[in-house]
């Protein structure tokens, strides 16, 4: 752990901006002091902020690191470093690996490999069901004990409704949230694209809005039944958000996230690309009205987090016709920039504070309370931060990525506002400012 001093930065502490330009001193893994004109300790690494923005390092609740078992697509090291390069200080690794992370031992594996990965902190999610089959409950207690940050059968919904209900009850006292991938798999069987304009014009099978809404309302009904918390991930349709808004107004402990691609892209991109596999994802890219509704949800309290659902694939799995291609969009290294640019293009709805909290303190608050880093940058907080240059323009080039992903729909797009440095547990794991090599 190094002593690091960020000089002359605008500090967003996870909830609000500090006044003026401040210096922030990180020492022994903590935020030692925030103040003006701090004296640099002798051993301190100094980062000249020059008025840039310093935020708590971003927290991604939904990342596919493909490790164990699918390391030709990504692994914990490449994924952790890609995350750091995207400004993330912590990522929740989805358990739909091969084998699935469904035991204490696999949770420990992800945690251990992540600890020395040299990038963002890797928080393992464990499966709700054994072998992610949706039949028997996995050893949630043991996985929580080993450090699981979420329980989810992501990639699919928890198959059995009774199992989901019991998992909600069982997980509540473990202090670990269940994350549900809301989808009715019968109604969305063999889907390729959004049911609507895209399916009508392309002749491809559609994923109806109702198939997602059924998954969401199923989850909400169980929360109402049990009073136990549930997180709904990658919500992509306007009607789904309406259901969540109503549930929240009732006081139900429901939370949700939306992805960068459902905020930045739409079914029009699928059509304009003439059905290019880079745009194939589950849930599919939705209508322009859905995209607008997600943006509204970001700033009325309905959406709790922006989570990437970074889903890297080997090029051979994506460079094929649309129907043959794997579902998933890789984005860790440009997710923040893509959404930040879109936020500015939309005239900066809400506030910068509200926008940044969706990447930091709000996802942080959904982690188990034992997690020290929860997306705050205050004196005494763990030493995690991201330096952002709001005006830097850069064009996405996947060839420069630390991720192993072979394809991204953002290739060649220019975004404005990029993370420059990421501090994780006191280590400057990403530093594009000084050219210093780390990690």
């Amino acid at each position, binding site marked *: 752990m190094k002593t690091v001093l960020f000089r002359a930065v605008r500090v967003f502490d996870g909830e609000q901006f500090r006044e003026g330009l401040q210096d922030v001193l990180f020492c022994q893994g903590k935020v030692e002091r925030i103040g003006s004109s701090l004296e640099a300790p002798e051993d301190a690494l100094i980062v000249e902020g020059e008025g840039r923005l310093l935020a708590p390092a971003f927290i991604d609740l939904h990342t596919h690191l493909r490790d164990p078992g699918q390391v030709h697509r990504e692994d914990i090291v490449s994924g952790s470093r890609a995350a750091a390069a995207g400004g993330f200080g912590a990522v929740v690794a989805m358990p739909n690996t091969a084998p699935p992370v469904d035991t204490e031992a696999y949770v420990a594996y992800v945690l251990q490999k992540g600890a020395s990965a040299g990038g963002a902190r890797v928080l393992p999610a464990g499966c709700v069901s054994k072998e992610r089959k949706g039949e028997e409950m996995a050893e949630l207690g043991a996985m929580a004990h080993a450090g699981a940050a979420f329980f989810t059968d992501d990639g699919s919904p928890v198959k059995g409704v009774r199992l989901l209900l019991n998992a909600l009850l069982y997980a509540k006292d473990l202090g670990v949230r269940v994350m549900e991938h809301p989808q009715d798999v019968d109604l969305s069987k063999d889907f*390729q694209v959004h*049911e*609507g*304009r*895209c*399916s*009508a*014009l*392309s*002749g*491809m099978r*559609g994923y*109806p809005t109702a198939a997602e809404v059924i998954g969401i309302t199923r989850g909400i009904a169980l929360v109402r039944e049990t009073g136990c918390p549930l997180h709904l991930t990658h919500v992509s349709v306007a009607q789904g958000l309406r259901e969540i808004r109503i549930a929240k107004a009732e006081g139900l402990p429901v939370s949700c996230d939306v992805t960068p691609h459902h905020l930045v892209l739409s079914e029009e991109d699928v059509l304009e690309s*003439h*059905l*290019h*596999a880079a745009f194939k994802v589950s849930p599919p890219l939705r209508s322009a009205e859905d995209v607008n509704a997600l943006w509204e949800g970001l700033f009325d309290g309905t959406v709790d987090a922006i989570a990437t659902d970074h889903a890297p694939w080997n090029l*051979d799995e994506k*460079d*094929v*016709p*649309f*129907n*043959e291609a794997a579902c998933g969009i890789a984005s860790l290294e440009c997710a923040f920039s893509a959404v930040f640019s879109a936020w500015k293009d939309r005239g900066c709805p809400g506030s910068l504070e509200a926008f940044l909290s969706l990447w930091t303190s709000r996802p942080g608050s959904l982690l188990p309370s034992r997690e020290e880093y929860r997306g705050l940058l205050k004196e005494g907080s763990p030493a995690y931060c991201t330096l952002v240059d709001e005006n830097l323009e850069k064009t996405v080039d996947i060839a420069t990525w630390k991720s192993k992903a072979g394809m991204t729909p953002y290739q060649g797009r220019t975004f404005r506002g990029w993370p420059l440095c990421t501090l994780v547990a006191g280590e400057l794991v990403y530093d594009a400012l000084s050219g210093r090599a780390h990690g």
Partner: protein
Amino acid sequence: MTWMHRNLLDVDVLSREDLEILLDQSVHMEDLLNRPIKKVPALRGRMIVNLFFEASTRTRVSFELAEKFLGADVVNWSVSGSSVTKGETLRDTAWTLEAMGADAVVIRHPMPGTPWYLKEKLKRASVFNAGDGAHAHPTQALLDVYTAWKHFDHSLDGKKIAIVGDILHSRVVRSDITAFTTLGAHVVLSAPRSLMPRGYAHLNVPYEPDPREAVKDADMVYLLRIQRERQQDGLFPSLEEYHWRYGANGELMRRAKPGALVMHPGPINRGVEIASELADGPESVILEQVRSGVATRMGLLYLCMGGAEA
């Protein structure tokens, strides 16, 4: 006006002027077909591959005849099943064909978007879409508009065209709507709601669930094939009920304009979407469509590949 296209992936890239150039060209090509010696050397020395990933005898034979009448060297490359089950990716197939010197690839594939994918992978060769899933079938649209255009004295402006049948699974209808609309015709669709795309409003033409209303005062009725599997998918109860509600016969046609044309992309299911009395009747131009297919494909290949060396 000059023709600028070297490929045809869908008809949406063709302007009204483009379509008119192609229609005129096709008239010349049809004249050729009427000669005792049909072959001309326009594409002599050019190699065209017909790359078919699903069985489609009539489209393939039509392309093959068009290519041969223009003097091209023709290779038929048929693959059953997807490239995945075959074990070679489409990318590798594409590069293999180009390495063999293909000047053009005509592709039929069950998956939408595949011709665009192929075009992206090929450095030099022209690509012609011979049908991609339920997405597009541009050369069918060309032969359809050509057939109608000849019958309507070279103008489709203001003509009413009713398309009746399985809109949901039809690759023909999407291209036909575009081509007919570009030439000034009004298209109306009719099908049971379960055989319509749910987002049909985005097709930008009216939908009329009652076929008798749809064909009212139509200048032309276009029937789409009903595949038997669709009944097994639970999209409608039985072929008999389909024929009773949506099948075209003399009674239905009495609601259209007198002498209204009857078209069908073939192959026809007698007694399902079309009664024999209609298929074999004087207003049916179904066989003329087949002949137009060769002429328009010749016109297209000539315009895209003939003339100046690519």
